[in-house]
């Protein structure tokens, strides 16, 4: 079991200036697994992803990535170990064209998708390749933010609220993409508000509240733990 463990977050505390946001996050992700961090706004899910990449203020605890401790590493070094990050605000650069946005992140591993594979997956991006990044529609920007990390060969994807604010047809499309990525043995951490989007995709779900993991629910236990979900998420 521990041999296939890809990411282990233990007793992770994180701060933004004076405010203490994460209070001892604990969870693991196995290689090739897709997990979801569920919870209310402000529960600390986005901060968890940011803390893994060293984008918060001070952090304590441990983050083991593929057997290496990364808590004291500089952000770009962590990314170079093969982490792809899709931020909640999408982070499309206004000063770069669609294709420049796509080609921006440097290779961090082998086996990334080629530009053609990405354009086959997201045909809209091929049509808009020369448009300024922020002229794209919300859905196109989200696809671009996703596509951008698939090219680099990153094996661990940290995806923050990728379904937020998108039309159902695009959400469905993103779900298909995640399934394809799982087939290709990507390891994925989904931060989601949208339970219906995450539930069929995630092998395990972690319920986060007050900067801690309150409960873990495996794919098979969804029905019997309905009460927990009701209590924490209201679904």
């Amino acid at each position, binding site marked *: 079991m521990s041999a296939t463990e890809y990411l282990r977050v233990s007793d992770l505390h994180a701060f933004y200036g004076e405010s203490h946001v994460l209070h001892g996050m604990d969870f693991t992700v196995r290689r090739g697994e897709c997990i979801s961090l569920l919870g209310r706004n402000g529960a600390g899910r986005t901060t968890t992803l940011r803390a893994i990449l060293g984008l918060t203020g001070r952090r304590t605890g441990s983050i083991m990535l593929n057997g290496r401790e990364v808590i004291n590493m500089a*952000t*770009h070094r962590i*990314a170079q170990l093969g982490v792809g990050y899709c931020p909640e605000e999408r982070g499309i650069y206004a000063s770069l064209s669609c294709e420049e946005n796509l080609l921006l992140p440097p290779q961090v591993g082998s086996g990334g998708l080629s530009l053609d594979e990405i354009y086959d997956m997201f045909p809209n991006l091929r049509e808009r390749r020369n448009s300024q990044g922020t002229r794209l529609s919300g859905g196109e920007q989200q696809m671009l933010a996703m596509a951008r990390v698939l090219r680099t060969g990153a094996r661990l994807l940290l995806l923050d609220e990728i379904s937020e604010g998108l039309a159902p047809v695009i959400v469905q499309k993103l779900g298909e993409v995640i399934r394809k990525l799982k087939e290709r043995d990507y390891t994925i951490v989904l931060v989601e508000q949208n339970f219906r989007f995450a539930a069929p995709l995630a092998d395990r779900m972690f319920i986060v509240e007050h900067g801690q993991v309150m409960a873990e629910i495996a794919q098979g236990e969804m029905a019997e733990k309905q009460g927990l979900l009701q209590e924490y998420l209201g679904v």
Partner: protein
Amino acid sequence: MTEIFGVPIQALFGQLMLGLVNGSFYAMLSLGLAVIFGMLNIINFAHGALYMAGAMFAWMGMEYLGIGYWWMLLLAPIGVGLVGIVIERLMLQWLYKLDHLYGLLLTFGLALIIEGFFRDLYGVAGQPYSIPEEFAGAFNLGFMFLPKYRAWVVVASLTVCLLTWYLIERTRLGAYLRAATENPKLTQAFGINVPLMVMLTYGFGVGLAGFAGVLAAPASQVGPLMGSNLIIVVFAVVVIGGMGSILGSVVTGLGLGIIEGMTKVFWPEASATVVFMIMAVVLMIRPAGLFGREK
């Protein structure tokens, strides 16, 4: 002799050329300031002093080591760039999160120290630096004499500006730079070493100032105060063009050089202040500058 608006045509073109030369210096210096401001959020008041250091390095290379103009055109900017990298690592990197004012004060202090250093060594009087022999003399264009060195200054500085623009707008490294300017944290989260790029950007920006300094050495006296005389006008140019726009700073620099030259012909008394008058008008109409974007 032919006259235009009562001005001899030779005087007109002479001043136009001089304006173009001055404009070339404005363009190179404001370009460096714009690149530095975009990436580091620092208003680099030491720019004039580092321009002067470039010229002093060229003179010192000749005086002490017998290294000629062409080698110093390469070596002096590298030397100034290295000085910049040391400044960035030791001091500037601690100021990025603070208000602009701190960076401005620090670099202003540095400018005084650098000037004081050369003043202490060589006094305020300028040192002569001769024009390289390849560019001694002038072209006779029929309607005017064009000193070869002035033509070279314009060509060299426009080439450098164009190369800088190409580097930033058309290459992969430039895309990293634009991305890091816009969203440094996310760019670092993609695995790009942003602190290293910031350091190199400052080195490159002040290296441009050093290059301008070497170009200026044969055209004027090389002395510790040559930077502070120029930098005030250059800041006005940056304000008019808008901070952070590359093409804007080049176009504005050249344009204002020409306007200044023409003012010398038609209204000599105003030539020293015309740039500041334009600055006042631009600030009233477009506070972000001609090419700047409002935030």
